[in-house]
C-alpha cells in the first residue's frame, strides 16, 4: 500500500476536526462529572426537600454545563399554570427573558416544547441569539420548564452536552416529585396520627365506660376505688363503696323487653347522676363521688372525703328514696326500687376486691330483708347508724305528724304550795318507742337544724295552751321555755318570739325564757344581745342550771336576767349534810345581792324544801310537787287553784 498524501487544506480540516473532538471530549468528560454530582438535587431528605432548594441546586449544576446569557425555571403549580421560580439575571438583557417566554407561551411554542423531551432551540427576537426550552418532566408528569438564551455561535458547542441537560432536568423533575410525595406523606402521616390519637382516646373511653349509660364501667370503677384507697390510706377519712341493684329488674326486662330494660337503666343512671351532682353541690364540692354501671342492673357509687358515716347514710337514704319512683318507660309506668350494700374502707376491707365482695354481700342481705333499703357490711354500723338515722328521719316528720307534745312542771311557792307557773318541757310521742324525753332527740334536732322549727313550735304551743285557759290576761301564769344555744344564733330570735306572742295575744310577761349558764358562757355577746332585746319586749329571763357553767360575776352583772335557777345537782345534795348547803347559800346570797329571784329545781324531798326555805329561797320545782304533766292536768290544777303539798304541810 502506498502512503496517501493530503493537500494542506485537508490537513487543516483534519487539524480543526481533531481540535473540535478534543474539546468535545473534554466537555463531555466535564459534563459527566457535573451529572455525577446531581444527586444533590434529589428531594429525599428533610434538608433538600423544598422546591426552592431543588431549583437552586439544578441551576448550579446547569450553570457549570452551559454558559448561557440568562436562564430561568418555570414551575407548574397546582392550578396548572407556569410560574417563574428562578431567573439568573432578571432585567439585565433587552428584552427580558421572562418577556420572551410570555411571547412563546402566546405563540403556542412553549406548549409545543412541553411535549418534546429534548432541548428545543427556538429563534430569539434578538439576532444571533437562540432560546432553548427544555421541559422538566418525569415519565408521567410535567413539572415545569427550563429556559435559557444563548449566542447562536455557542450553540454548537453545547450540542455535545445537551443530553446531560436532559438528564439533569429529569433528575430535577423527580426531585420535585419526590419532595411533593414526601410532603404528601408527611401530611397523611400527621392526619393519620391525629386520627389514631383520637381513636385511641375513643377506644380508651369505650374500654373504660359502659356504652349504654356512658358511665365508668367496672374496670374503671375498680381502678378509681383502688386509687381512692391509696389516697386515703392512713387518713381519718372514709371511703365508702355503695353497690346498688335494681329490685325486680328482671321482671321489667321480661315483661317489657330488653329495650325497655335498657331505657330504665339509662333513666336510673341519669337520676343517680343528678342526685350525686346535687349532693356534691350541697357539700360545697368537697364530696367526691364516682358513679359506675358495673353491669346488668348493678351500679356502684364510690364516695370519698369529708362525709363521715352520717353523711354516707344520708346520701344512701336519699339514693334509695329517690330512685324508688315511678318512671315512664316507653309510655309504660315502671316502678323500680333499689337495694344497696355498703362497704367502708378501712373497716370492711383494705383493698378494692375485698370491699367490692363485702359490699355485694351487704347488698344481698338488703335484698333478703325485703329490698328497697340498704345494709352496711359491718353489722354494728347497721344497728347504730340505722337507728340513729331512722330517728332523725322520723323527727323531721314529727312536727307535721303532731307527735310533739308539751308537758308542764309546776313552779311552786315553797311556803304555800301555790302554783306560780310552770316550765314547759317537750316530749316526743314516738309511734314505736313511746314517749321520748328531750335528751333523746334535742341534740339530733340541733344537728339537723330542726331546732329552730321545734323552738317555734314550743312557743306557739305554749301560747295555744295559755289561750285555752280562757282567763283574763293578768291571771295567766308565767310559763318558762328553754332556749338552746343554737336558737340564740337565730338572726332575730327576739323579733320572731315577739311576733308569735303578739299574734296569740299573750302578754310578754307570761313567757319566761330559760338559757343555761353554759350557753351564756359560750356566747356571752349573743346572750347579752338577745336578753336585752327580749327584756325590752317585756319577757322575763332565767339562767338555767346555775352553778355548773362558770359564769363570771361580771357576766352575771351585765346580763339583764330576772331569775337564777339553782342546778339540781346542788339541790339534790342539800339533805346530805351541812357542808352541802354552803354552795346553795352562796348562790342565793349572790342572787339577792344582784337583785335576782332564785328558784330551785329538782326538789325531791321535803327536807330539801325545808333547807331551801331556811336559806331564803322561796320558789321551787321538782318531783316533790309534781313531775311534768300533760297540759290538761296542769290546767285542772290551775283552775282549781290546787295547792301542792309543801314541806311544811
Amino acid at each position, binding site marked *: 500500500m502506498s502512503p496517501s498524501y493530503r493537500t494542506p487544506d485537508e490537513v487543516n480540516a483534519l487539524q480543526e476536526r481533531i481540535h473540535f473532538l478534543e474539546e468535545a471530549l473534554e466537555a463531555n468528560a466535564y459534563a459527566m462529572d457535573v451529572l455525577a454530582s446531581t444527586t444533590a438535587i434529589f428531594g429525599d431528605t428533610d434538608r433538600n426537600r423544598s422546591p426552592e432548594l431543588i431549583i437552586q441546586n439544578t441551576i448550579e449544576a446547569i450553570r457549570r454545563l452551559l454558559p448561557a446569557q440568562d436562564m430561568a425555571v418555570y414551575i407548574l403549580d397546582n392550578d396548572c399554570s407556569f410560574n417563574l421560580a428562578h431567573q439568573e439575571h432578571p432585567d439585565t438583557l433587552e428584552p427580558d427573558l421572562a418577556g420572551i417566554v410570555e411571547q412563546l407561551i402566546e*405563540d403556542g411554542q412553549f406548549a409545543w416544547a412541553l411535549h418534546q423531551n*429534548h432541548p428545543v432551540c427556538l*429563534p430569539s427576537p434578538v439576532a444571533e441569539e437562540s432560546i432553548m426550552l427544555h421541559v422538566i418532566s418525569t415519565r408521567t408528569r410535567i413539572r415545569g420548564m427550563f429556559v435559557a438564551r444563548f449566542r447562536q455561535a455557542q450553540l454548537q458547542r453545547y*450540542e455535545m452536552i445537551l443530553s446531560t441537560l436532559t438528564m439533569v432536568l429529569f433528575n430535577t423533575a423527580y426531585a420535585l416529585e419526590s419532595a411533593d410525595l414526601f410532603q404528601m406523606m408527611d401530611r397523611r402521616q400527621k392526619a393519620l396520627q391525629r386520627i389514631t390519637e383520637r381513636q385511641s382516646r375513643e377506644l380508651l373511653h369505650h374500654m373504660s365506660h359502659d356504652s349504654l349509660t356512658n358511665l365508668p364501667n367496672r374496670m374503671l370503677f375498680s381502678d378509681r376505688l383502688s386509687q381512692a384507697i391509696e389516697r386515703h390510706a392512713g387518713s381519718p377519712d372514709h371511703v365508702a363503696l355503695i353497690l346498688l341493684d335494681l329490685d325486680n329488674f328482671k321482671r321489667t326486662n321480661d315483661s317489657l323487653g330488653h329495650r325497655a330494660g335498657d331505657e330504665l337503666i339509662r333513666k336510673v343512671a341519669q337520676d343517680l347522676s343528678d342526685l350525686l351532682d346535687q349532693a356534691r353541690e350541697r357539700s360545697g364540692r368537697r364530696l367526691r363521688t364516682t358513679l359506675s354501671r358495673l353491669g346488668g342492673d348493678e351500679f356502684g357509687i364510690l364516695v370519698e372525703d369529708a362525709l363521715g358515716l352520717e353523711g354516707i347514710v344520708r346520701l344512701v337514704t336519699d339514693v334509695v328514696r329517690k330512685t324508688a319512683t315511678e318512671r315512664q318507660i316507653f309510655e309504660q309506668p315502671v316502678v323500680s326500687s333499689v337495694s344497696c350494700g355498703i362497704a367502708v374502707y378501712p373497716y370492711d376491707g383494705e383493698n378494692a376486691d375485698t370491699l367490692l365482695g363485702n359490699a355485694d354481700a351487704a347488698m344481698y342481705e338488703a335484698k333478703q330483708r325485703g329490698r328497697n333499703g340498704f345494709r352496711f357490711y359491718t353489722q354494728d354500723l347497721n344497728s347504730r347508724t340505722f337507728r340513729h338515722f331512722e330517728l332523725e328521719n322520723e323527727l323531721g316528720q314529727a312536727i307535721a305528724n303532731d307527735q310533739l307534745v308539751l308537758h308542764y312542771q309546776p313552779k311552786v311557792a315553797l311556803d304555800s304550795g301555790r302554783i306560780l307557773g310552770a316550765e314547759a318541757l317537750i316530749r316526743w310521742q314516738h309511734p314505736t318507742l313511746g314517749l321520748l324525753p328531750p335528751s333523746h332527740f334535742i341534740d339530733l334536732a340541733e344537728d339537723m337544724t330542726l331546732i329552730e322549727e321545734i323552738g317555734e313550735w314550743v312557743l306557739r304551743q305554749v301560747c295555744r295552751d295559755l289561750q285555752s285557759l280562757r282567763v283574763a290576761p293578768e291571771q295567766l301564769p308565767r310559763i318558762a321555755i328553754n332556749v338552746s344555744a343554737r336558737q340564740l344564733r337565730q338572726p332575730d330570735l327576739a323579733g320572731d318570739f315577739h311576733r308569735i306572742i303578739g299574734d296569740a295575744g299573750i302578754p310578754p310577761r307570761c313567757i319566761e325564757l330559760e338559757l343555761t349558764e353554759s350557753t351564756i358562757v359560750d356566747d356571752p355577746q349573743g346572750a347579752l344581745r338577745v336578753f336585752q332585746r327580749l327584756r325590752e319586749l317585756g319577757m322575763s329571763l332565767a339562767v338555767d342550771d346555775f352553778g355548773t357553767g362558770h359564769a363570771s360575776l361580771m357576766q352575771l352583772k351585765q346580763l339583764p336576767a330576772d331569775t337564777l335557777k339553782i342546778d339540781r345537782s346542788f339541790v339534790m345534795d342539800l339533805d346530805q349534810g351541812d357542808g352541802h348547803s354552803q354552795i346553795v347559800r352562796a348562790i342565793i346570797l349572790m342572787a339577792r345581792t344582784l337583785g335576782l329571784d332564785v328558784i330551785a329545781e329538782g326538789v325531791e324531798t321535803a327536807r330539801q324544801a325545808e333547807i331551801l326555805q331556811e336559806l331564803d329561797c322561796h320558789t321551787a320545782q321538782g318531783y316533790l310537787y309534781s313531775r311534768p304533766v300533760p297540759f290538761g292536768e296542769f290546767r285542772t290544777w290551775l283552775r282549781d287553784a290546787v295547792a301542792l303539798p309543801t314541806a311544811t304541810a
Partner: protein
Amino acid sequence: MTSIAEFLEQDDSLCSFSGSYNTIFTRLNDPTANVAGITEAVELDPTIAAKTLRMANSSLYGFPEPIETLHRAVSIIGLQQIRQIVMSTIVIQHFRDLPVIGVDMESFWRHSIAVGVLSRSIARFRREANIERLYLYGIMHDLGRLLLFLHLGQRSEELINIREREQCLLFEAERELLGFDHAAIGSALLEEWGMTPAQVEATRYHHAPEQAPAFPVETAIVHVADSIANSLRLGSSGERFVPPVTPETFDRVGLEMPVYEDIIGHARKHLEQMQTILLD
C-alpha cells in the same frame, strides 16, 4: 450457498449511496457539523430538502407556526434529530426505485414507515429524549429483505413456496433456504454504512429481541412496532403472519398495555401524512 458478505459485495451500487446522497450522509455523520453545515448539506439535494421541510411542518412535529426555512427546521428539530430524519428520507429515496422481483415496493415502504412511526411513538410514550433515533431504526429494520429479494431474483419464489408449505413466518423460510435471514443481512449492511451499534443490534435481533446483548430496549421497541404494523396490516414486507411478542419483550419496553392503544392512535394519526411526504 451464499454468505452475507457475498450478498453485500454483489452490487456495490445498492450498498453505497451515490452523488449528493453520499455527501449528505457523510456530512450528517460528521460530529463537527453545526446547524449551518447540516442545512447546507441537506440543501444539496432539492428533493431531500423539500421532504425534510415538509416533515418538519407535518402534524408529527406539530410545531405551532409554519417553519419557512430548512435552517429553522434544523434548529427547531435539533441537530441530532434532523440527522435521523434526513437519513431515513435518503434511504427511502435510494431504495424505492430499485427493481426488486417479488416485492411490492409501495407496500414494503408503507410497512417500514409504519414501523418507524410506531417505534418513534413507543419511544415518545417512554419519554425518551431522542425519539427520531427509533424512527430511523424502524424505517431501516427490513432493508435486508430488499437486498435479499434483489439478489434472489427469480429464486424468490422458492422462499415463498417454503413459507406456504411450512405455514411459517417469512424470516424462518429465509433461514431454511439460506441459513440466515434478512435481519442478519440488513444489520451487516448498516454496520458497513457506519450506523450506530444500537441500530445495528436493533436490526440484527428484531425477530429475536431476547438475544440482543447490548441494546435490548431499542431492539424490543422495533420488534413490538413490527408486530403491531403486521397485525394492523399497515403495508407489508412479505410476512403473512404476525410475529408473536413475548411478555418479556413487552416488559422490556416497560409500558402498560392500555398505553399501546394511545401509541397506535398517535401513529395512525400521522402515518398517512408521512407516507404521502416520503413516498410521493
